[in-house]
């Protein structure tokens, strides 16, 4: 088992290397040149050369790449922001906090709503309640997150004035007692979490509902029922367990979607997270931040893929015990 886990982690190393190389290439081969950010026609040739040299942009692409890779792999150093000269790692680590908080609660929301509604409707398949919930979820699945966010802000922030629609805290956050601070943070998080979580909840719902309906119609459920096992035992012990399994591998799909969604939600709700930092960096052509951010996003996805794989194999005895498995 342990051997298998180690093997899985080791097999991710080439993927990770190819991935961060692609990040580097994408950013450097995209039309436009990092140097153009600093250069303008009024500068003398000598000044332009000094600027290129200062940022290592006078070297050839392979040399820039190996230098960057060496710094990243051995020193975990992504360089300094072109925009404000800050250490990229520090900038991203400080931006990671809001993104993790937002994504975590959106995931919790998506899983709890998606799983409970999925089970609820699977047990009532083809009834009116099922059709209404199913259609509502289909709408959320197709709703652009930024539009949902805008509508929430328009309704709950501007018109009803119930909930704040931007930033993580109020301006007077420091003057509040600890309970007040908690309440303030929760109030700020409600709309972004709903915006990010609702489309995800719809995805989870779709999988769980389909899985549960399949499980409830399967032979083993029929056999269990024939043996006189109680309906609730069949439901919770057999059907649910089997329909939850695909959800673990779905994590591999949900995490990239969560990160992509976080970009939009952070921009709409002005949250200081990684997504917003990336969008700002794109507009400011801040190449070091972009490379660091893209590599970080890729790393997170790979990490969750490994975790999902390991969980999947722990949960599914067929894979655990097979020769090719862990």
């Amino acid at each position, binding site marked *: 088992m342990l051997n298998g886990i180690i093997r899985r982690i080791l097999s991710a190393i080439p993927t990770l290397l190819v991935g961060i190389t692609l990040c580097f290439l994408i950013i450097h081969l995209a039309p436009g040149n990092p140097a153009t950010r600093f250069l303008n026609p009024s500068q003398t040739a000598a000044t332009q050369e000094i600027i290129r040299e200062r940022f290592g942009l006078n070297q050839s692409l392979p040399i820039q790449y190996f230098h960057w890779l060496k710094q990243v792999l051995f020193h975990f150093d992504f360089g300094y922001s072109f925009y404000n000269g800050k250490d990229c790692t520090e900038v991203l680590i400080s931006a990671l906090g809001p993104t993790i908080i937002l994504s975590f609660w959106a995931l919790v929301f998506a899983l709890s709503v998606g799983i409970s509604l999925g089970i609820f409707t699977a047990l009532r398949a083809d009834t009116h309640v099922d059709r209404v919930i199913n259609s509502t979820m289909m709408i959320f699945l197709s709703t652009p997150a930024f539009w949902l966010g805008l509508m929430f802000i328009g309704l709950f922030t*501007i018109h009803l004035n119930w909930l704040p629609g931007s930033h993580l805290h109020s301006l007077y956050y420091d003057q509040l007692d600890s309970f007040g601070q908690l309440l303030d943070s929760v109030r700020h998080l409600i709309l972004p979490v709903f915006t990010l979580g609702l489309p995800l909840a719809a995805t989870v719902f779709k999988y769980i509902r389909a899985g549960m309906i399949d499980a409830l119609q399967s032979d083993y459920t029929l056999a269990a029922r024939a043996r006189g096992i109680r309906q609730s035992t069949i439901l919770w012990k057999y059907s649910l367990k089997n329909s939850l399994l695909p959800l673990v591998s779905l994590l591999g799909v949900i995490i990239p979607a969560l990160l992509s969604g976080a970009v939009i939600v952070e921009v709409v709700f002005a949250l200081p997270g990684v997504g917003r930092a990336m969008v700002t960096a794109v507009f400011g052509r801040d190449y070091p931040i972009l490379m660091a*951010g893209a590599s970080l996003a890729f790393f997170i996805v790979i990490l969750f*893929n490994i975790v999902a794989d390991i969980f999947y194999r722990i949960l599914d005895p067929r894979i655990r015990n097979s020769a090719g498995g862990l």
Partner: protein
Amino acid sequence: MKILPQKTQTNQSMTSGCITIGLVFIFLLLGPLLTPINHTSQNLSASLQPPSSSHWMGTDYYGRDVLARLVFGGRITWIIAIASTFMAVNIGTIIGLFSAYQGGWIDLIVMRLVDVMLAFPKLFVVLLIVGLGASSTSLLIWVLALFSWMEIARIVRSEVMSQKNRTYIKSVRALGLRTPRIVFIHILPNVLGPVIVSSVLLISTIILVESSLSFLGLGVQAPSASWGSILNDGRIDPLGTWWLSVPAGLLILTTVIGFNLIGNGLHKQLDLKKIV
């Protein structure tokens, strides 16, 4: 007993999807008949006007007619989505066919590349390339296609894998047919079903990514328009200037739901179990 309701639902899904997409298509096709105004002509004295008889859907900050922009922007959104999907499906099908038929280390490398590319958060990467390059519609189409072919390649590969050892392929091989002929004439038609379903669903995904990019100001650039960029114009007061934010959002939503319904309908009709 079980088959009957399922059949009805299949037809329902397909029918409502086709009607929805048909209505949006007619709106985009005949839109210019509803408004003679050009989508870029500005009139600063008529900025942010609510709907009226002269501007049925109101005006934006620059006094441009929102209805004209919705029609024009919708066409752009549709063209981008359909063109990128077409390219992605071609790339994915060719790579999937090639990889599965060759097998061995080529297959291993190609599939690893697919894994790596699937691990990139799509919006993240597309945002980088489009943002760093000069945002043009053709670049947008290319980039969206280059980051969308992987699912198709995977589906084609797994279908080909299951077909290539069947008796009919063995017998055409025994007849001495060349590989390209076997792959394109004999295998391809048998794997098209799942490809069609996932390409219809891909159109929805691409519409959502494109409108997100245009909303962020990185996709279609002014004075041109897409539904995402029109929505961005209504960002300051989403409900106060509802004629900017609500119709554009509803059009995106309707189109995406329409394509999803058609995809789901086709999925059930063709009785495919593998794709979700």
